């Protein structure tokens, strides 16, 4: 079974106004078959109004080993959030 059928990632927009969300993956020879398969596998109960398929090999991902240095520094930057600032109540909603 040497010929492996390529892997695709499937993204679905649940309804207009929402963004596409990753729902899973599947194997298909090309993008036409991938879209067909995605429709059958991931939208049997009106889960979506639009499908994207992307070859898994085309996805560039951040390195899990660098997760700490990538994402931890924002933890202590609380001044990026509105609640960091003291505004008297009399000023009203801001």
């Amino acid at each position, binding site marked *: 079974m040497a010929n492996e*059928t390529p892997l695709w990632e499937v993204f679905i927009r649940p309804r207009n106004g929402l963004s596409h969300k990753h729902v*899973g*993956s*599947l194997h298909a020879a*090309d993008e036409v078959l991938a879209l067909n398969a995605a429709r059958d*596998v991931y939208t049997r109960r009106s889960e979506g109004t639009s499908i994207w398929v992307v070859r898994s090999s085309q996805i560039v991902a951040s390195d899990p080993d660098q997760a700490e240095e990538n994402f931890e520094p924002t933890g202590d930057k609380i001044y990026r959030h509105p609640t960091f600032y003291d505004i008297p109540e009399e000023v009203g909603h801001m």
Partner: protein
Amino acid sequence: MYSQGLIGADGSTEETQEFLDAFQKRIDAEEKIEPNDPMPEGYRRTLVRQIGQHAHSEIVGMLPEGNWITRAPSLRRKAALLAKVQDEGGHGLYLYSAAETLGVSREQMTEELLSGKAKYSSIFNYPTLSWADMGTIGWLVDGAAIMNQIPLCRCSFGPYARAMIRVCKEESFHQRQGYEIVMYLARGTKEQRDMAQDSLNRWWWPSLMMFGPHDADSAHSEQSMEWKIKRFSNDALRQKFIDATVPQAEFLGLTLPDPDLKWNDEKGGYDHGPIDWDEFWRVVKGDGVMNRDRVKARKKAWDDGAWVREAALAHAVKREARMQAAE
């Protein structure tokens, strides 16, 4: 939908104690483990085996019911059964994808199913002899699968848990359509009632076996519980299933084929008679009525589809070359 007590999982592992402790700490904190996270080899191996068995069970599980699609007694029943069998195919695909995130290929898993190396749920090695079996399978087999799968939605491995959430959403219709079939037969003519009872007599014990061996004989269960792959023991889930099913059978006026079945006030559940584990192991090891037939059918589907897979790949290569030439 048909994961059963895992057959032959070996959770043994060779990492340092420090590594294992750090991993266990994440598990105990209810953190999800994702595919690229460090994990003990035993954890990975157990999951590959369990998710693979589960996926194969979904796919092989299409066969006993597929057997009756063309003979469904009405268009309503046929549409429902067709949709159910299609769902099971989908479940198999979600699960194969989850297993693939652990570094095993679809081709490899397929090969192991076709060669007989990989196991699937023993329940599908029983034949479907009457239309009533479509009802009983939905009611009992999907019912047992739901008991098993609901706790798997909280499994520590993220991709498996997410696949299970999708699957569980789809299962409830499977059980209800099955129960409805049995209900109509139970309220029908004497022949129909007899057909329903005969079907229940044949499927009750195999359904109880779906939860796997008793806890005392389930060698690797403990490690799976500790890693939160599994949340309840085989016996606990079996008990839950029995307690839920007895009143459903009573409502239909059908009799569960176990003379020892009776309510135990003290434990707040039903006691049941002994399960024939010799039969279970015979079927698991390949000597059920339908084992050979099921693998033969899967092999035929794989072999007959070979030219389609090859043609689709060849077409994709040609099209890409043409597109590149046009750029």
